[in-house]
């Protein structure tokens, strides 16, 4: 039981960091922008500073930190603390409490316009890490009220991989349509998934029982497990691994397009991360948890007593099963945008819809933004996002790309109440996008307002 909660706590805290940042979508000039839509391009070729060339951290879900942690007498306690009443703890929880974390760190990146200043190619290597989890309310009802019942769809999934992508975008229809495609080779580092389809708890006077139906599978190079020789059971912590090489390979594409509906009105659409990773069965440990345990009291009679294994709520015990090659689809996302420019491209108004397909649910986001770009090297963006028809976030973004540096930062954490560790307290999403690079090579001729006189030659 304790280990279960340790796992829960670890997952909660790990998820407490911070998805695609909608504020950064309309941030013209940002070298990161082509990650949202491969048809986008920066204003000039570039080379990213290794490691800090482009980082994006996105947390999204339907619960906020203050639904999980509570300030009590100068301390910060979890919703499981005895000082938090069941009503306080359960009041803001949803039927399914979802959290997803998506991190992308650019390790290497560079891009260049071709001779016509409109076709653009880039190459980047990114470290990607995703995590998603679902904690059903019934789990917390059990924990806070001691209320027995059936807990379903309880689980967590995480994966990390390296992606090496080549992106190419080019104009069509007399420059009104830009089409972009990014092909990505993927090298899987690790993945793990724990799911419980059934977790039934009975707390009756004459019977305490637990029935679990769950699976675990973990893939990482060198993964192995030695189950208890007597019981054949292993626990999560028993899995050993020695990663020296990728545990799987895959391929994915990003597809995107922009279309100038009117001279100042651009529509954009992208589908990203359409692909899969095939994980190696030799690097996979798989197990099932089919525990049925009950305690009805010890029966005593003149003929003695019968003992049974100690009753426990421990559910993180698995029986190893044969591993198989597993192909896992990436978490695809859809970005659909509309931006209208005014006053010779000084101000733009944007509307963005994003959908991201998490392990347990598709998360939707609608963002409105105002984008100031009084000069070609400076963009300031303000955004307001509505998340899954609930919660909201105000974001700010800045892109500076004078001749010697590319710098962009965008976040929705600046104006929201947050922890000293920069975790939003009342907001159920958090986004940080940050990058630093050096402009190189030809400038873009895609935006007429920004074309320099000496570039026209």
């Amino acid at each position, binding site marked *: 039981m304790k280990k279960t909660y340790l796992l829960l706590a670890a997952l909660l805290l790990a998820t407490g960091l911070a998805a695609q940042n909608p504020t950064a979508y309309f941030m013209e000039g940002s070298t990161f922008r082509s990650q949202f839509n491969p048809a986008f391009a920066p204003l000039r070729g570039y080379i990213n500073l290794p490691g800090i060339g482009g980082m994006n951290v996105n947390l999204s879900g339907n619960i906020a930190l203050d639904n999980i942690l509570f300030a009590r007498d100068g301390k*910060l306690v979890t919703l499981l*603390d*005895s000082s938090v009443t069941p009503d306080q703890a359960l009041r803001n929880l949803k039927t399914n409490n979802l959290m997803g974390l998506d991190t992308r760190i650019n390790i290497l990146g560079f891009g260049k316009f071709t001779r016509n200043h409109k076709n653009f190619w880039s190459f980047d290597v990114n470290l990607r890490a995703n995590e998603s989890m679902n904690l059903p309310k019934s789990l917390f009802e059990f924990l806070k009220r001691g209320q027995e019942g059936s807990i379903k769809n309880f689980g967590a999934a995480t994966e990390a991989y390296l992606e090496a992508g080549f992106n190419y975008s080019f104009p069509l229809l007399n420059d009104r349509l830009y089409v972009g495609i990014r092909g990505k080779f993927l090298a899987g580092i690790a993945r793990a998934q724990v799911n419980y389809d059934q977790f039934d708890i009975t707390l009756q006077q004459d019977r305490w029982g637990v029935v679990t139906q769950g699976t675990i599978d973990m893939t990482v190079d060198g993964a192995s497990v030695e189950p208890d020789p007597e019981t054949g059971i292993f626990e999560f912590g028993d899995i050993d691994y020695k990663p020296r090489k990728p545990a799987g390979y895959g391929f994915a594409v990003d597809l995107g397009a922009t279309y100038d509906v009117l001279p100042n009105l651009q529509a954009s659409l992208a589908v990203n991360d359409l692909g899969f990773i095939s994980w190696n069965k030799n690097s996979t440990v798989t197990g099932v948890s089919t525990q049925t345990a009950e*305690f009805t009291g010890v*029966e005593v009679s*003149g003929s003695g007593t019968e003992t049974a294994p100690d*009753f426990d709520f421990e559910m993180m015990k698995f029986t190893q099963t044969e591993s198989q090659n597993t192909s896992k689809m990436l978490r695809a996302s859809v970005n659909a945008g509309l931006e209208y420019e005014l006053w010779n491209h000084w101000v733009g108004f944007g509307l963005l819809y994003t959908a991201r397909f998490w392990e347990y649910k598709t998360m939707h986001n609608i963002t409105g933004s105002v984008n100031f770009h009084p000069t070609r090297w400076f963009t300031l963006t303000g955004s307001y996002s509505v998340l899954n028809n609930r919660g909201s976030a105000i974001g700010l973004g800045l892109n500076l790309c004078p001749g010697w540096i590319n710098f962009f930062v965008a976040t929705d954490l*600046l104006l929201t109440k947050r*922890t000293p560790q920069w975790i939003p307290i009342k907001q159920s999403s958090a986004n940080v996008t940050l990058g630093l690079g050096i402009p190189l090579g030809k400038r873009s001729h895609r935006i007429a307002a920004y074309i320099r006189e000496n570039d026209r030659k």
Partner: protein
Amino acid sequence: MKKFYALILLCVVSSTACVDLEYDLSKVSTDDIAIGDESSQFEVPLLKVYISMDELNGTDGDAIDEIFNEADIWLPSQLDQDENGKYVLVQQLVENSEYVNQVLSALLDQMASDSEKLNQVASLLQEKYYAEFSSLLPGISAEEFKAEFIRQYTANETLRVLLNEKIEELARGYLTGLEVSLPSLTYSVDRIDLSDDVVDMLIENLDGKEVAEPKNTLHMAGTIDNRLPVSITASPVFTPTEVTFTTQIEANRDGNILPETRLFAEDLQTIVRGLTIEIVVNIDKYYPDKGFDRYPETSQPQLAINLHLIKRGALKFDL
């Protein structure tokens, strides 16, 4: 450029202003994690003690049903009655001669008017007490005893008085010698199959004896199903703890409620490691018309003690 600096300044100010120091994640406390709250109540099964007829014996090894088989014949039909039927107070039979006199008087009255009762008594005398009547009914063989006893008892009023005196003597001897207290029943339990984690959840936040109005408490409670036609007072002792209670158990009734007995942390820790249950049984009332039901012995015990724990307040555990 001034606007740019103002923007930077705004960012710095807002990044500082929106920090809530109460939510410093480095100060998360997980010391007081609990399931439920003060108003919660959890019930946990603990023990089921099944007592069969073979275990309910008198001091000389006679089964309880055999002991009361003879009593059934000595007891008249006219007895006090409650909702379960006519009964005799066993304790009073042993200790109260006045009460015994009333019972025996009723017996003799019934024998004079009820041929079936007379027949039952005659059968018992023939079977067990034939020799006691050699002076009153001389020269009667054992085989002829019952018929001759009934004939003389019915026809010879003078002899009947003498026979009644002998019957009264025999009945008194038996009824006053009934065993009120059965030899104690002892059961050993190697261990209770609850994990340390579950036990810790139950005991970690219990209020101590010194707390005037405890909210986090643990009690032993339960029921007793009694198929016997006797009401009893049972006093189980759970050694090596000092936990004990005494309870009245009605005859022929399932679900006799046991009193809640408070346990402390060390009590439960001791109990789950193994215990001996010694049960002292005192018989209070006997319901002759209900009869003992020895069979089917295997499917239903005569006494079934169902014990469970009641934890009031939250279940505590460390994260």
